[in-house]
């Protein structure tokens, strides 16, 4: 039974036709995948459905009758729950209030706190989430916040649930938990829309699929079972997509560029040993919250190192801040938090890339010659294939993939020799992801020492030479990579769950 239908929906933005006659059909008791590259229009479609954007054409049909939603409030009351791609919690509020924000329970005109507590607890329990509804959301980890958002979407008693990249920032374990919930909802006869760039997940849980390309649907509600992964990718990309084949690369025997021994930090790391040689990609794997990003930040002087020693090129060093790391040690850090820490959304692409090299370009009185700057920027825009109309374009108007390229470009421009790359491909489509993999591979081949932090196991196995596994701020062990997914994933997962190899 078709529960929901979006029929020939158009959406125009100033300068962009984001949706062009897109049709989407959601069946009761089935999970539907919505696929497409970055900027294909997936999120826009979801926002049109939930009444956040007014469609410029087409109609929406819910339960056989045409509907028009003036605001997300109306769509929520009609039983459409949604998890948006953007982080979506209100900082000063508790977990419970955030979950029930769309319809806070009241009694005698006042918000009923005990009702919030019980009802929120119910939704948290549904997700097997052990959280206190009275806890402020500011205390949550990224993954926990994501799960709270899912609880929030469920809480509107939704018959239709739209999930826009819900798994982008959670671990496989937590994703599994989510999938169990999705399966349950499906059995209850609800319709679920699932957007993800992780095709493994899509094939694991979805029944049918719609593929968008440049705002138009190139496949409408096809059964997923009939398609192979490659076929889906080809549809998204619009031509035959070749599977990634990385050229051979050997790690030259050399002294480590970066070495940690017995490092402890103020955020709780203890006895961390790690080394990266030039030309080597060392993967740092772990569950969300294992302390990998925090370790990276401590290396950059953003957190106190309380024990042990950090050696760069054999010299024991104390790095004070990112500037110090960059100038004196040629260490760069591509952050996992692209939008807040990686790029300056309201600044031009050119400034974003040049930010690390002004020191080098400047002449007397700090004068930065515009020509030299432009030439330098053009070089990296060209090399990384950053799609822009002009270097003056605001970075915030770029797609996620292009933003990520900008975030990386500034470290390449700074000619760093040690690069820490944190979750480089979160929310990035298959093709761009492959390009990034080639790039990282290539950087290593050119002699960079790379510490790659990623929660994407396939990515880790594709790229890393060695995988170091962390748990609870400690190193659990290390696995040499044989680039075979099945054996590697088993070994890595086993390490994560191994009891106290080093843990106290």
């Amino acid at each position, binding site marked *: 039974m078709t529960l929901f239908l979006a029929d020939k929906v158009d959406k125009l933005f100033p300068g*962009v036709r984001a949706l062009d006659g897109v049709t989407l059909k959601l069946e009761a008791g089935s999970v539907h995948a919505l696929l497409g590259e970055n*900027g294909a229009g997936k999120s826009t479609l979801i926002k049109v459905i939930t009444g956040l954007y007014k469609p410029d054409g087409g109609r929406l049909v819910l339960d056989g009758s045409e509907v028009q939603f003036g605001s997300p409030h109306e769509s929520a009351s009609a039983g459409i729950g949604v998890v948006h791609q953007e982080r979506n919690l209100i900082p000063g509020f508790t977990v419970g209030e955030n979950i029930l924000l769309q319809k806070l329970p009241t009694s005698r005109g006042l918000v009923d706190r005990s009702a919030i507590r019980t009802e929120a607890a119910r939704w948290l329990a549904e997700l097997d989430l052990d959280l206190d509804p009275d806890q402020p959301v500011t205390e949550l980890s990224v993954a926990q916040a994501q799960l709270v958002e899912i609880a929030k979407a469920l809480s509107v008693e939704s018959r239709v649930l739209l999930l826009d990249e819900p798994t982008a920032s959670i671990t496989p374990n937590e994703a599994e938990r989510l999938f169990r919930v999705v399966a349950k909802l499906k059995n209850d006869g609800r319709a679920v829309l699932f957007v993800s760039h992780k095709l493994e997940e899509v094939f694991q849980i979805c029944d049918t699929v719609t593929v968008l390309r440049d705002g138009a649907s190139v496949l409408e509600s096809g059964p997923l079972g009939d398609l192979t992964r490659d076929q889906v990718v080809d549809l998204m990309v619009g031509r035959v997509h070749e599977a990634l084949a990385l050229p051979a690369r050997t790690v030259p025997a050399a002294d480590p560029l970066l070495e940690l021994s017995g490092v402890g930090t103020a955020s709780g790391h203890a006895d961390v040993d790690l080394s990266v040689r030039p030309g080597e990609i060392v993967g740092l794997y772990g569950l969300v919250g294992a302390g990998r990003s925090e370790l990276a930040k401590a290396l950059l002087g953003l957190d106190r190192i309380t024990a042990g020693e950090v050696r760069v090129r054999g010299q024991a060093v104390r790095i004070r801040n990112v500037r110090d790391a960059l100038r004196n040690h040629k260490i760069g850090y591509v952050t996992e938090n692209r939008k807040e820490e990686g*790029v300056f959304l309201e600044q031009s692409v050119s400034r974003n890339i040049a930010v690390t090299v*002004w020191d080098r370009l400047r002449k007397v009185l700090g004068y930065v010659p515009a020509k030299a700057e432009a030439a330098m920027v053009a070089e990296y825009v060209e*090399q990384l*294939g950053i799609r822009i*109309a*002009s270097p003056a374009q605001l970075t915030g108007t770029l797609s996620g993939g292009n933003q990520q390229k900008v975030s990386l470009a500034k470290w390449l421009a700074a000619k760093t020799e040690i690069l820490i790359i944190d979750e480089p491909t979160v929310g990035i489509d298959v093709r761009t992801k492959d390009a990034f993999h080639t*790039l990282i591979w290539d950087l290593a*081949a050119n002699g960079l020492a790379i510490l790659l932090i990623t929660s994407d196991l396939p990515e880790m196995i594709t790229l890393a030479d060695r995988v170091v596994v962390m748990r609870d701020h400690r190193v659990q062990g290390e696995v040499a990579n044989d680039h075979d997914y099945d054996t590697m994933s088993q070994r890595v997962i086993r390490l994560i769950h191994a009891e106290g190899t080093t843990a106290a």
Partner: protein
Amino acid sequence: MSAPVSETATAALQEPDAPVEAPQGGRTPWWANQRIGLLILVVALSALFGVLRPAFFNQQLVVFPLLRDIAMFTVVGLAQLCVLSIGHMNLAVGRMAAFSMMITGISYDLWHFSLYAGLLVGLVAGAAIGALAGWVIARTGVNSFVVTLALDFLLLGLIPLVYTALTDNAAFVTKPPGMRELRNYSLGDVCIGNVCGSPAVPQLTLFAVIAMAVVGWIYSRTKLGRELLMTGTSVKAAELSGIPTARRVITAHAMSGCLAALAGFMLAVSTGSIKATIGEEFMLPSFLGPILGGTLLAGGFISVWGTLLGTALTSVIRKGLDLLGVGLESLNIYLGLILLVALSTDRIRTVLSDRQGVRKR
């Protein structure tokens, strides 16, 4: 390792068939540009007032003082703009001006400094007090609003104590040679051969021109300016890109203090003496100029020209109303209403240009 990215990777990264992403907002028509809109408004209002009261174009009595005012408030605006660029505020602009002029006054009165030596001392004092504010903000991470507000109170207390201790009339009345002249000299007094400047342009405006040039140059051409703007856009990203954000915060506040001192000097010269109440009226105009001109309160974008135009707009409105003989009962009412209407038209223009942008496709 000059080119760490090889051909293969570059090739892989290219997306030959993907459409270039359209720059949003970059393609607005000229008439939707805020600065041009302001310029048109200023010119139109001047013309209107000129028609209603031809005396509006009286060089000596109207244009000269008007330009002197605009010059001074532009510098005040620039003082605020420097901290706005990093997303901060300086509620103590006026008091910083008073503080630095106090030092300048002492240098004239007690140490018998020359006009410009005293100015220099004042500028240094302004930069120092600004740097102090910046330092507290950077060290403690307390909001700039709170820190500068508290500093304002502190100085509000300190300055009268010093004045009452050092002077009889709560003002430094010693005028170094040149101060009296600077007040009334115009470009008409600057001649190269037989060609003299306009008698309608006060020499004091040169200070504003220099300030605008320096600030404009810093923000558009130098590493410092770029780093300030980046810090204003996102402190986190700036810190993680190797910008010493704490130092930039201090720099921005020091620049602000220094410009406040310059504005205080211009005020002292144009009204006559160096007194404790200098700068009392600076706070609102300091925000009004930059913000009308498009500088963002949130940081990361500034406009030096816009500051000049924004300041000019308010000064022209006030002057015109003065000339029309609008009494105090109505003056503020008209002033507020004209401001609102002027800004609403700005908004309407933006909306229209957005619409047009859509229609073109």
